[in-house]
């Protein structure tokens, strides 16, 4: 068996599979897996009051298939494509580029598929039905935040340490409009719908704040820019704490949770489950939240991708590379920077109001500086400007935070009063230091060109400038 594997490995290496060939292979794999799984897994018999019922488990089948395909893809990329050690000088570099190219092409779609099926997949892990979803939602909202911040830091090269301010603006916009102003202006009937009305408003308001922050910082660079954005973030938080009659200060605000287009998630008439005639399950709300945040995150992703290919996005990147050259080419660097701040802030606002709708509670405690630092850490660890890297980094950082919650069993060997969870920041911080020591440019160190004539070649991160602030 081992010999065959090795044979295939060499064959794959010598044939140097192109992405198309790999795709064909993967489709084949998917079909075979499906065919095998349908008789084995798809049907399940359950005892129901003495009779056997046949149940279908399509999500599980699809999830397993996806897992197999992704696994095979990874094998293609990391195992079968690796050149033998001998003669590494020239061939290794060629193969390395090859598999990197392939990774770049296929890992994104693979992760998208995984993300879409994730809520169903976690249902089959006992004990994780809700927790798994909760973590997924949590990580996904950080991915979205980091994608938003990426526009400012990664593309335009402007270091922003106060991003959480826009998150706060979004959350408080949602909270205040939903609990106070919308009912005041339009009557209580509007409340179940506010999420959908306020979401865009929160984005716009945050964008406005982005411009307000943008103006003073336009001429600043480096440390100066960083400290002003940090100060801005702190100002927003301190105002939220102290402006009591408006924000209820440190007490926070209780907010009605989001609804499914007006249908609340509750065990009552007129609710989501009632409307669709299915038994009430608390998980419905989590499924709903997951797909909302996935949608929002994908919107961020798609829009960033689109913007990068438009003149404004190219101007952002050019600004990061060389501001003086930009000015010499007739680019108004002022408005270019402001749009970067505004659009980055807008996505912060979106995820802020999602946060409020998910938590059902907002307070200034959620918007401390360390949150900005965390989001920035995700962007930097992911590799500046790389959207894919951000996904990895968010999973790595936020996931390892969650992992520490699961380490309760270590309690047995640790001294009294020491809980592993207290060390999560320490360990993750240490991990970050090590990562940056060995991969100083982040996890994904390549930049995709936005336009090409003949062939799309990734740009190595060593050549990409990190901006001046």
């Amino acid at each position, binding site marked *: 068996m081992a010999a065959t594997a090795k044979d295939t490995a060499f064959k794959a290496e010598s044939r140097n599979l192109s992405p198309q060939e790999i795709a064909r292979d993967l489709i084949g794999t998917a079909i075979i897996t499906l065919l095998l799984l349908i008789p084995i897994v798809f049907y399940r018999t359950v005892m129901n009051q003495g009779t056997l019922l046949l149940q279908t488990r399509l999500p599980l089948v699809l999830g397993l298939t996806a897992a197999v395909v992704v696994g095979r893809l990874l094998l293609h990329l990391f195992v079968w494509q690796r050149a033998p050690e001998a003669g590494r000088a020239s061939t290794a*570099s060629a193969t*390395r*580029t090859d598999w990197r190219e392939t990774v770049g092409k296929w890992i994104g779609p693979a992760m998208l598929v995984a993300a879409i099926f994730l809520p169903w997949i976690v249902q089959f892990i006992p004990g994780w039905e809700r927790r798994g979803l909760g973590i997924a939602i949590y990580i996904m909202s950080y991915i979205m935040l980091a994608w938003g911040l990426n526009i400012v830091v990664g593309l335009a090269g402007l270091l922003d340490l106060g991003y959480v301010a826009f998150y706060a603006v979004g959350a408080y916009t949602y909270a205040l409009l939903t609990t106070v102003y919308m009912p005041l202006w339009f009557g209580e009937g509007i409340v179940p719908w506010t999420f959908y009305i306020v979401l865009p408003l929160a984005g716009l308001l945050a964008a406005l704040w982005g411009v307000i922050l943008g103006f003073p910082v336009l001429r600043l660079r480096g440390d100066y820019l960083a400290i002003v954005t940090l100060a801005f973030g702190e100002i927003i938080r301190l105002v939220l704490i102290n402006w009591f009659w408006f924000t209820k200060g440190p007490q926070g605000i209780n907010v009605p949770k989001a609804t499914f287009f007006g249908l609340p998630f509750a065990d009552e008439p007129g609710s989501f489950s009632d409307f669709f005639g299915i038994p009430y399950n608390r998980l419905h709300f989590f499924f709903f939240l997951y797909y909302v945040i996935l949608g929002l995150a994908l919107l961020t992703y798609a829009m960033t991708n689109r913007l990068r290919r438009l003149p404004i996005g190219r101007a952002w990147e050019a600004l990061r590379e060389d501001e003086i050259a930009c000015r010499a080419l007739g680019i108004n660097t002022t408005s270019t920077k402001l749009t970067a701040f505004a659009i980055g802030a807008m996505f912060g606002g979106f995820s802020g109001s999602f946060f409020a709708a998910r938590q059902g509670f907002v307070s200034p405690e959620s918007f401390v500086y360390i949150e900005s630092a965390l989001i920035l850490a995700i962007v930097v660890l992911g590799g500046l400007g790389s959207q894919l890297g951000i996904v990895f980094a968010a999973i790595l950082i936020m996931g390892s935070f969650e992992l520490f919650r699961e380490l309760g069993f270590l309690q047995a060997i640790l001294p009294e009063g020491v809980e592993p969870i207290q060390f999560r920041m320490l360990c993750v911080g240490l991990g970050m230091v090590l990562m940056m020591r060995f991969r100083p440019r982040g996890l994904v160190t390549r930049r995709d060109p936005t336009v090409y004539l003949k062939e799309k070649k990734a740009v*190595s991160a*060593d050549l990409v400038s990190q901006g001046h602030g």
Partner: protein
Amino acid sequence: MSDILLRGTGVETFYGKIQALKGIDFEVRNGEIATLIGSNGAGKSTLMMTIFGSPRARSGKIEFDGHDITQLPTHDIARRGIAQSPEGRRIFPRMTVLENLQMGATVNKMAFFDEDVGQVYKLFPILEKRSMQRAGTLSGGEQQMLAIGRALMARPRLLLLDEPSLGLAPIIVKAIFEAIRELNASRGLSVFLVEQNAFHALRLAHRAYVMVNGRITMTGTGKELLAKPEVRAAYLEGGH
């Protein structure tokens, strides 16, 4: 053998995946001016930096004064008596001209500072006028002079000059080449010179190398190469 001050054998350097130097052999003897010519991107500046271990040679060996310096940290190499005026000048823009020169004298702990600074000012009088100005405000050519002056402040045994004539007025170019000749003649300073301006460089050199695509393709005395038709065709004429 101590006659040979700097010797490289089979030096290979990579930038990531790209091989910039493909097995270079070279030597600079005591009291000699050696020159390296070749077109842009041939790897000349890479060789200059590889001698300083930054980037480090992946294989091959570099010896200075009989000692293997291939694996030494950059600052140790500098302390052994090699100084460089690097590509892109790399003066310290937020220090004054004088402070830049002081930085150059770091290796000898400023022991001969007053004497050496006088020499540099004699060579480039404009630097004396600008000595209290911040180096970032100098014009490009003045920065070039400062970079060379700073390298001289170290009283090196071997001076590496990477395109000293870049961006300088013809009259200054002549002055700089004259200065190199003078330093070599009066102090026996060994010089390893990278030049685009092949004509001046070859005329000056006791030993010359032509580099194409990371390989040394021709070696000889400066005058031998100057006389070779292929060198003349590729690096000397064309503009006229």
